[in-house]
């Protein structure tokens, strides 16, 4: 089962785990990304495209499910205004075997950094506001999945 969501509401990790695990998979890998309060961050705003963001996540989930023959993939991205500690993204990948689940989970988190139309804007305690710049390391990590089979 593939479940993809782009939502302004809080990501309920426990509820998503229950939904995802309904099949009782042999191996489940997960990744949870949260807003860090580094450097006095007060708010993280995540802008998205009303159509393309969901389409990109759905395509990534489909690609991972096909590549590693996964019975279940969950990919949920929050958008809009968030506070430090809030969950931004949840990736769940399940398989009968651990190596497929772990690889798919890493693939999904790496690739959604570069493939999904999402832009982060940071607001700090002192009033500064800045859009996050794309990092070379993210591009490198995402690209390395192209070379493997």
């Amino acid at each position, binding site marked *: 089962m593939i479940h993809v969501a782009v939502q302004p509401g809080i990501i309920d990790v426990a509820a998503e785990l229950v939904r995802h695990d309904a099949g009782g998979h042999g191996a489940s890998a997960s990744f949870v990304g949260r807003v860090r309060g580094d450097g006095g961050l007060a708010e993280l705003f995540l802008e998205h495209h009303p159509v393309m963001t969901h389409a990109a996540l759905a395509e990534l989930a489909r690609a991972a499910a096909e590549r590693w023959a996964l019975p279940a993939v969950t990919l949920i991205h929050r958008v809009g205004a968030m506070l430090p500690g809030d969950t931004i993204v949840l990736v769940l990948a399940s398989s009968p075997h651990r190596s497929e689940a772990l690889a798919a989970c890493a693939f999904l*988190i790496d690739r959604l950094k570069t*493939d999904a*139309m999402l832009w982060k804007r940071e607001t700090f305690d002192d009033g500064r506001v800045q859009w996050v710049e794309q990092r070379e390391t993210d591009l490198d990590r995402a690209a390395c999945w192209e070379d493997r089979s």
Partner: protein
Amino acid sequence: MQISYFSWVRERMGIAEEHVALPPDVAELSALIAWLAARDARGAHAFAEPERIRAAIDGTMIGPDARIADAREIALFPPVTGG
């Protein structure tokens, strides 16, 4: 043709989207960006560095040489920073 803007491109343009009637010589993406940059001060600010601009036509990512004549919607935005 509808053009939509995202992230700091949207902020610098001051609008999320607009409808434009393009001159017939604006046929590729790069020409559209140059035309927007020359149109007014907001465009000049938003598109001062064309190499930092990414684009999609009707939901598909495109390169600077892509033809835009048949597009219904063009999205213009900086490199993504999600996850």
